[in-house]
């Protein structure tokens, strides 16, 4: 299951990444393996999404969310 499959309000825990380049950027922003992520909202047009992670709100595109595999 990837992060892009979660609905608003659902929570997942990061397991690993499918894309090395993206993972480096995501990890810098606090999306690390073991970290809890909650979907805060989805942009009005369906993409990007906003997530709550490491104590703050981060937005990323659905494609980028699909590189995050959840536990």
């Amino acid at each position, binding site marked *: 299951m990837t992060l892009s499959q979660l609905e608003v309000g659902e929570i997942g825990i990061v397991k690993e990444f499918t894309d*090395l380049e993206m993972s480096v950027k995501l*990890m810098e922003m606090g999306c690390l393996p073991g970290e809890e992520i909650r979907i805060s909202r989805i942009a009005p047009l369906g993409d990007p999404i906003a997530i709550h992670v490491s*104590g703050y709100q*981060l937005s990323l595109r659905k494609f980028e969310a699909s590189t995050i595999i959840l536990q």
Partner: protein
Amino acid sequence: MKADIRVALVGNPNTGKSTLFNILTGLNQKIGNFPGVTVDKKTGFCQLPDGRTAEIIDLPGTYSIYPKSKDESIVFSVLADKSKGLVPDLIVVILDASNLKRNLLLYTQIADLKIPVVVALNMIDVSEKAGIAIDIDLFAKKLGVPVVPVSARKIKGIDQLKSTIAYANKIALQQDTIDVDVIAPQIIAQIKDELKIDNPYFALQLAHQHETLSYLPTEQSDRIEELEKENSFHSQKAQATETIARYNFINDLLYDTVKKPDTAHDETVSNKIDKILTHKVFGFVIFFAILMFIFQAIFSWSAYPMSLIEDLFIWVQSGLTKVLPAGPLVSLLVDGVIAGLSGVMVFIPQIAILFALISILEDTGYMSRVTFMMDKVMRKVGLNGKSVVPLIGGFACAVPSIMSTRNIENWKDRMITIMVTPLVACSARLPVYTLLIALVVPNRNVWWLFNLQGLALTAMYLLSIVSAVVVAFVMKFILKARERGYFIMELPVYRMPRWKNVAFTMYDRSKTFVFQAGKVIIAVSIILWVLKSYGPGDTFARIDQKYSQQQYTKIMTPDSLTKVIASEKLETSYAGVFGHVIEPVIKPLGFDWKIGIALISSFAAREVFVGTMATIYSVEGDADKLESVQQKMHSATNPDTGKPVFTLAVAFSLMMFYAFAMQCASTVAVVYRETKDWRWPAAQFAYMTALAYTASFIVYHWLK
């Protein structure tokens, strides 16, 4: 001013770094460039409690020492490049106390470079309010550096920060955060050995960033490249390992020192605001309402100060012509330099208002929501959510808007934004449109509500946005991407705008515009003045001679005589000659040589069109009054056919030309400044001219 120590401010975006910088330095700051790159370098001076003076450098906000944009790459190169004398004696790392985890990543990277560090724990009031309890003493002890709680917004803890800076150690005493050597043992050891570097993290950063560090000698950079191959060093893998290790350290640190309440995050104020502002329907309604407001503000609020500035320059010009003896030098000063200066200054109100509003939107956190909402649409046409701001700004002036594209990290998205922004109908086109529409479009209402002239103007504005989008879409396929596009962006908590910051941004942007664009506009104005004031051979003398004959002096008033002479001189001047030369080229568009002169002189600034028309048609009385120019143009007839010159077809063809052509020396200059490559402004000039010619041609022949 000579500083005793140099202090650099480093921190994540949205941590109040700039506010802290403004408080520490007051208005005692200056903006320059970092060597070799167009990234603003803000420096200022701060008096320390021990009597010494500190030079404070505000480094661009970044989440990590690994750069994602041009601005961010400055941070490491300033800390690394010892040759420019910019390496700070002390770094103040600013951490957002209410969001410590992500903020600490940058701290651990900076700390491991082993430059003396002080931590400013900003927004301590916000975190206290949220019930976050930080054991500051233990926190400081674990890091091994002084930690000062401050609130930059409420100006609390500043004195303590200043004295901490004054009495900070000259040697780095901070604890190691991670074991750097294990990440890539061999290559770190070799770089340390061969480049005589003692810090392992510095060596590792050289391995990562050597390609982009301009100060590094080529042979050293090549040698590092060789070492990477020998050791099969993989930059991204090493960075991933490092980031995980750093967050492990951070999690341990926060576990011991920070207690957070277990309340649901969902009910924060920010979240409630987001529910409305990024709502499926209200979100867009509010966004368009704000856009309309910005639009209104740029036009209506600036009208009064703009006419004030214009009046001031007219007063200065007429005053000078009265006081100073007539001659070419005075004419150069009055009609060349001062006229050019007026063309620059008149935009200050619009630029100030635009940047005040933009900085309010950015400061409150709303701008990142706009980006969030618009990203999907903008991406479809090859742009980026962040391109929305420059495109809106383009309605005021392309110059500051192109300057504001710097925060678009993706190279391709940024270039496309720069390339299409000048298509957006800027305020300099407004006087041209107003004049031409009033000339040919009847002033009456259709369907009771809509004024025809208003509709025509709206159509020109819509056309500008549509053309920008279409061109962006085409360029999406032409330009090759340098890196993968991504959109990982913080949505900061909503905050009240900092009014001092807003005021400062207004001042700062206006100043940059005046100095950057001003130079070019004045230079072009002087060239145009020469072209308009001199003619080949003794033509000017002959005109003077001709009108000194009695047959003219008797029947004409001195005032109208001057006008006729000016008009005839312009016709025979170099500008007039040029107008005649390009006439065959512009004839298919319905333009005669008089319009040709206006097109040439509009290159300094588009609104010069009105003034040039006034001179060409030797308008009597006040040349700056739109009505009188309009009347003259209305009655102008083609000497060959006897029909009016400004027909509907010609006027609209001319408007098309102004809509698409790059007739703006300042924009050309600023595009060069931002891209550092003449090919970009050249390509832009070429495609816009081609577009202008084609559009005018089609419209002229369609309406003829």
